[in-house]
């Protein structure tokens, strides 16, 4: 807990039960799949069996005449629309046009009276393909004679969210590159006392959300209305506005309950396709993907990283250099930003005087990669935090002590031009180490590791909100932030209730309807508590300021004579609560006050990142040396969150993220054999289960109120994922003496490493 004295909070910093819990566990929460519009039809998608092929011809006539079919739509039917979308790079056609670029790409859709009729008509669509040579890895993609995935030059998307240029579409398969450099790495490595160098691979993973992609579109003369399971409705609105060439006001995105996102529902996914279906069918259309189809829609970028890290004779890290080759799949999606973020996140939260990171992502004929919880950080924390342990071992230091000696200190400008470090990693690490019994003796076959990460998080600060205070003193928050299960719609009203001094129960949240709720750029990068939370705090205070003026008017005194107290105002003997202020102002027990706030890259948010998302995890594992199977014995998470608006929810985010990271460390990996995805179902793709978690789990929060958000809060919820794969690799190295530089550490990989170790030993 905090060493600083926390303010005496009434609602904030309390674990009030989450708002949506009861509705969700009783099945009463309505998701998009529960919604039905009048006259609604259903779509099913025909997907390409080939990873790279020319579309020679598509004959839809037989399919169109099947019973119950309203229409069939292909890439040839999109005249009148701008069919390419993408917030970073406009490279993604809503249906394949002229060619397909990955096995599973949508080629056509059937719209019919029901899902079954649509599905059964799919096989009557006659498509002739002419297969092309494929590229499946960055290495293949950068070869001189590699076939090009994208021949055309693209427009940069309008909302790319980063300052650099878009490199895609310049006659190569390079999608994006990003570089950072300070100091002189070559010189530093020459002077180093010890260097670790290695190649690492972080796999393709699928951010399994229980709810697969689903959307309903209603395109008519009044514009486009879409109900979607989307994290960033306002970003999706922008893509649809440009596809249909409409004013912003005529595109409406509505997001009801969302069954999990984890980055996979950030930015535009199936909305353009379902909108085009509705446009052609001239009626509302629902498209619900199966999980298997969702796995053909997005994934994480896999990353091949070469990294080296150097220390001086005093055990200080003096240099780090990395070259990263990321595999972004067939379309850019959000990968250009993943490239930028993973480049920055190579530094880890360490103060390193000489750094050079070169990062390239390539188009390949695989499922498009995009945002994934942690956002490029897990990809580079596997090498980064592995090398910390490898270096510590090389110079004979305790890896925990080695970290303590090198992590960025509070307030330190460890990353040029970025916000000074706003976390307390030494404290965090100490808690994680204590939680897993760092100093206790280890049984045979067991190993421990503590590791950390610090991400430049919070995305771009552009957020607005309105807090409406009603005449009875209750309030409604209008927020564009999406409740994905992370608990935002519990945390946000806690902040308003704290500020307005009204009961938590009386604050309602209306959210994620672009026609109603003010603009919020996105729900991702752990930004909502910090940015929307700040907006709600400021809007609540702005409402109070308005009510102070009203109270002065009602009491016929000067504004300066009004004193704000909890839940109302005082002026001499007179005391009015908000209900009385508003009712007396309007002369009726009705009416309202609207507090507003606009957050932009200015003031306390002028320096990026919005905050450093910082966390540590600690693990103890045991390894079955005969089979190579790893068991988790202990897990600890430490979320450096500044202040937990809702501690239970913050801890829930941490254990969720750590579990997801554990999945990557132990078994999650999308496997391609040639151009075909081999395990594209949750039967074959192994997700973590509760039974995989160790019996000993400790969740800690560090609350030093050092964040830029409300009451010193900052974001959390992603960071506990980032260090888990490295942690598992480090713990295995300590348990059985093999260093595995690839995730997941499947039993067979561990067994092979052990066998190799035996072979080397017997040769000596």
């Amino acid at each position, binding site marked *: 807990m905090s060493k600083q004295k926390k303010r005496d909070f009434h609602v904030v910093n309390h674990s009030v039960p989450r708002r949506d819990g009861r509705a969700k566990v009783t099945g009463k929460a309505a998701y998009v799949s529960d919604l039905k519009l009048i006259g609604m039809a259903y779509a099913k998608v025909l997907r390409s069996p080939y990873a790279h092929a020319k579309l020679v011809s598509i004959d839809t006539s037989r399919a169109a005449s099947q019973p119950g079919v309203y229409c069939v739509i292909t890439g040839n039917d999109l005249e009148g629309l701008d069919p390419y979308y993408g917030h970073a790079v406009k490279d993604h056609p809503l249906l394949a046009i002229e060619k397909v670029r990955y096995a599973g790409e949508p080629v056509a859709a059937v719209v019919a009276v029901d899902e079954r009729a649509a*599905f059964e008509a799919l096989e009557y669509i006659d498509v002739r393909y002419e297969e092309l040579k494929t590229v499946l890895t960055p290495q293949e993609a950068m070869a001189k004679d590699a076939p090009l995935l994208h021949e055309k030059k693209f427009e940069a998307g309008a909302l790319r969210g980063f300052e650099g240029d878009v490199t895609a579409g310049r006659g190569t398969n390079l999608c994006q590159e990003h570089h950072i450099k300070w100091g002189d790495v070559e010189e530093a490595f020459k002077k180093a006392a010890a260097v670790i160098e290695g190649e690492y691979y972080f796999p393709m993973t699928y951010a399994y959300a229980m709810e697969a992609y689903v959307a309903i579109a209603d395109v008519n003369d009044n514009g486009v209305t879409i109900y979607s399971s989307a994290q960033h409705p306002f970003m999706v609105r922008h893509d649809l506005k440009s596809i249909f060439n409409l004013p912003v006001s005529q595109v409406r995105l509505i997001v009801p309950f969302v069954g999990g996102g984890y980055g996979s529902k950030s930015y535009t996914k199936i909305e353009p396709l379902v909108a085009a279906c509705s446009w052609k069918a001239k009626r509302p259309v629902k498209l619900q993907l199966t999980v298997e189809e969702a796995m053909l829609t997005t994934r994480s970028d896999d990353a091949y990283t070469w990294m080296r890290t150097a220390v001086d004779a005093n055990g200080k890290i003096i240099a780090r250099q990395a070259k990263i080759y990321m595999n972004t799949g067939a379309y850019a999606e959000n990968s250009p930003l993943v490239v930028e973020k993973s480049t920055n996140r190579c530094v880890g939260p360490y103060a390193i005087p000489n750094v050079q990171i070169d990062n390239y992502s390539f188009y390949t004929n695989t499922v498009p990669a995009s945002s994934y919880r942690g956002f490029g950080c897990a990809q580079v924390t596997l090498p980064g935090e592995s090398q910390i342990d490898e270096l510590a071992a090389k110079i004979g230091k305790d890896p925990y002590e080695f970290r303590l000696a090198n992590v960025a200190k509070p307030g330190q400008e460890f990353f040029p031009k970025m916000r000074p470090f706003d976390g307390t990693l030494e404290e965090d690490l100490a808690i994680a180490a204590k939680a897993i019994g760092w100093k206790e003796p280890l049984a045979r076959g067991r190993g421990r590791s503590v590791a950390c990460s610090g991400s430049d998080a919070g995305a771009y600060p552009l957020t607005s909100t309105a807090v409406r205070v009603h005449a009875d003193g209750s309030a409604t928050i209008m927020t564009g932030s999406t409740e994905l299960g992370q608990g935002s719609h519990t945390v946000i009203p806690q902040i308003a209730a704290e500020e307005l001094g009204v009961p938590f129960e009386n604050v309602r949240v209306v959210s994620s309807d672009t026609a109603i709720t003010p603009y919020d750029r996105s729900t991702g990068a752990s930004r909502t508590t910090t940015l929307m939370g700040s907006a709600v705090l400021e809007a609540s205070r702005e409402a109070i300021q308005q009510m102070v003026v009203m109270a002065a008017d009602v009491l016929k005194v000067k504004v300066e004579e009004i004193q704000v107290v909890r839940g109302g105002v005082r002026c001499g003997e007179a005391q009015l609560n908000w209900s009385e202020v508003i009712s007396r102002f309007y002369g009726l027990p009705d009416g309202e006050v609207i507090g507003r706030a606009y957050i932009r890259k200015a003031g306390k948010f002028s320096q990026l990142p919005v905050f450093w998302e910082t966390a540590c995890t600690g693990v103890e594992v045991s390894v079955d040396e005969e089979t190579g199977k790893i068991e988790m014995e202990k897990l600890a998470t430490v979320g450096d969150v500044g202040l937990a608006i809702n501690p239970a929810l913050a801890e829930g985010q941490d254990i969720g993220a750590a579990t997801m990271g554990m999945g990557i460390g132990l078994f999650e990996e999308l496997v391609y054999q040639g151009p075909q995805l*081999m*395990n594209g179902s949750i*039967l074959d793709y192994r997700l973590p289960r509760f039974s995989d978690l160790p019996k000993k789990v400790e969740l800690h929060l560090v609350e030093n109120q050092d964040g830029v958000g409300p009451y010193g809060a900052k974001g959390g919820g992603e960071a506990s994922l980032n260090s888990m794969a490295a942690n598992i690799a480090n713990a295995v190295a300590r348990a059985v003496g093999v260093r595995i530089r690839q995730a997941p550490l*499947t039993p067979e990989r561990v067994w092979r490493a052990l066998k190799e170790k035996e072979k080397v030993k017997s040769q000596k």
Partner: protein
Amino acid sequence: MHQPKSVGEAAEMLARFGEKGRLYAGGTELLLAMKHDLLRYEHLVDIKTVPGLDKIEAKNSSLSIGGTVTHREIEKSAVVRERLPVMAEMTRHIANVRVRATGTLGGNICFAEPHSDPATLLLALGAVAKVQGKSGEKALSMSEILMGAYETALAADEILTAIEIPLPAKSQRAAYLKFQTHERPTLGLALVLSLDESGRAITKAAAAVGSVAPKPCRSEQAEALLTGPREKVERQLSEASGALADAADPVDDLEGSAEYKRHLIGVYLRRAFAQVLSGNPPGREKIAD
């Protein structure tokens, strides 16, 4: 969906529908495959409504488990737990409780999914499948009924009515172990040993390995190596596992390479051997995974 009232009527229906029909006995595999459009049938013949196929009966020297008995019923059956605890223990670790509550033993065997736990244990236990078709009844050993991945020796009209498992003699001990990290096991290994009175020699051995290849298998050579004085057998364990691995001929797949599976056969044969001889009362062994 058809709901016949007798095995004869079901066989009649299956014969009539031919390739357009399929027996439905729980659906945990079949419906999944149909949902993914891997299999298409116009007719499903629901065998669960046929009376008499859902019984577990202990006879003098065998245990009979009806074709539509669910895994969950086997797992909880007092008779199975007492007379053939290895079967109850194996069943307790099949998939998850929802699958066990719906899936049936008959369905499991007839779907012939290569990762079936029961198939491997039943093969080692010398179980027999009772089969009834339009033209009469017959009995098939597990190696006869299981032809390959998703392939059985059953004709279109034939129905597995019961599995008959010889009850182990007092001198017999059995274990079923599996290695599993994915949804389905990477390897299942069943070992049944008959011991002489001293407990120091093995008079008869049955070892079956499953999940590593299209169908579970035994090896006469391996079983010969597993027979004899205990110390001698212990020395021959790796040779026996090599013979068993040769017979099984593991395949490379998402669960692991053939090489890794061959290695696991060795590890699990040793573990099963140690467990069977660990002094637990015959047939009281715990299953590890």
